[in-house]
């Protein structure tokens, strides 16, 4: 058995341990590689800051992700929440995952200083869990009260000052959907395309390839892709957080994968040369 064959048949647990120890390095000794800003992330940041936002505008932030995608989506959502609050915009939070309350709690912890200066019901509201898929998002555009008669805490929307005059797409300045799946596409089809409501996505890395064409076409005014997008947003707002911390381990894991691919293919080429 050749060395390459022996390596090909190596117990997979060896690979797990190699990666585990390699990823320990940046945690023990942070590296801090420089980070450039992708144009889609810059567009997202520009769309929620400066002249793009007027004080008092009402935005929707949709938590289309559960706990399992916190590492990829939460940092970006934290930054856009901070940015919108600092522009004196008001925010409606909602989400289609049953653990949406945990996600909201995490956001309030991560952006605690910004939430501290805001009042529930006046500056932000948490509508909570939504179900019903694309039909619910369509309905939200025309009659929010038929989807959410009450907020997450059981208060009637009519009794919440922020929601008093809000019931349809015309009352919303923009939507930021943070996704692991299709919710951004639902908003795209039911809010952005028919009503031209500004829409941006903060998605997991896997959504990059499907979302970028929509950003290039102008359907999304901006897009953050995965943890890297979150780290870019943290850099743009000037407050480094958990996505920036994760960049070192992402660098190491990505590099290890490329090294594994190269080594495996060197083995293939060596064997092929020997056979010929």
């Amino acid at each position, binding site marked *: 058995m050749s060395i390459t064959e022996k*390596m*090909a048949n190596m117990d*997979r647990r060896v*690979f*797990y341990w190699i*990666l*585990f120890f390699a990823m320990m390095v940046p945690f023990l000794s942070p590296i801090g*590689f*420089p*980070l*450039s800003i*992708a*144009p889609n992330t810059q567009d997202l940041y520009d769309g929620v800051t400066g002249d793009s936002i007027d004080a008092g505008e009402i935005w929707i932030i949709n938590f289309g992700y*559960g*706990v*399992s995608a*916190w*590492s*990829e989506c939460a940092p970006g959502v934290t930054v856009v929440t901070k940015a919108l609050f600092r522009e004196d915009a008001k925010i409606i939070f909602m989400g289609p995952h049953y*653990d949406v*309350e*945990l996600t909201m709690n995490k956001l309030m912890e991560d952006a605690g200083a910004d939430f501290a200066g805001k009042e529930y019901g006046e500056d932000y509201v948490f509508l909570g869990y939504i*179900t*019903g*898929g694309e*039909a*619910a998002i*369509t*309905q939200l555009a*025309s*009659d929010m009260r*038929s*989807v959410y008669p009450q907020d997450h*805490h059981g208060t009637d929307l009519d009794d919440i000052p922020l929601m008093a005059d809000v019931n349809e797409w015309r009352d919303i300045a923009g939507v930021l959907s943070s996704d692991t799946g299709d919710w951004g596409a639902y908003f795209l089809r039911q809010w952005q395309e*028919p009503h031209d409501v500004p829409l941006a996505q903060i998605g*997991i*890395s896997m959504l*990059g*390839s*499907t979302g*970028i*064409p929509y950003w*290039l076409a102008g359907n999304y005014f901006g897009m953050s892709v995965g943890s*890297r997008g979150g780290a870019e947003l943290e850099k743009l707002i000037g407050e480094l957080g958990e996505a920036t911390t994760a*960049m070192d381990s*992402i*660098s190491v*894991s*990505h*590099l*290890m*994968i*490329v090294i*594994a*691919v*190269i*080594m*495996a*293919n060197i083995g*293939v080429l060596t064997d092929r040369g020997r056979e010929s």
Partner: protein
Amino acid sequence: MSQVLKREVVYAFTGLVTVLMFVEYFFFAETWSLAETIRTWAIIVYNISLGLGAIQLLRQHTLNLQRKRDNYGYSAVVLAFFAIMFLTGMMGYLATGQQTDNGIYNWLFVNVYTPLGATLYPITGFYIFSAAYRAFRARNIDAALMLIAGCFVILSNAPVGEAIWPGFATIGEWFKFTGQIPGMRTFAMVGALGMIAYGFRALLGKERGFYAGGGDE
């Protein structure tokens, strides 16, 4: 009669709802309350289906346990946690209107569910690393091209790529912003056309799977 209920009534109802939604979208987007009412029904039905799903889950796992099928121990864990979360959540809800006001419910959610959920995605990295070595082999020219493109994209996504050679970012971004776009747009358009064709076939009763779990006619 049951056959009529199973097929013709469902065909007719699906067709009616589809036509109503089409007409609303293209002609009365702002004004038609009938379409809104139907969508509200859809959301209610969707919510009911969640309850049905829970009942089916309980039924299936109870059967697994009763008949001691393979891995029935997992079913016992599912049932036990279902009961704990349901009861503690209900206790919190009945006491204050918030499920999370129950200490046990909250503790399990924060200290068991959250770490498990947060571990789910990252753990795939280990499988990918192992699979990268075992399966990503350039056995032909197509596979070689895909691997090379993949490596550039991976290195452009990670800051280390730029640190090694700035060209990784330039080439990787070309793949992301230019190279893949025609393919993804084609996928999107073909998918949309496919959905339209599927919708028409379903309306005409040609897609039995849509109605009753059967195959094509």
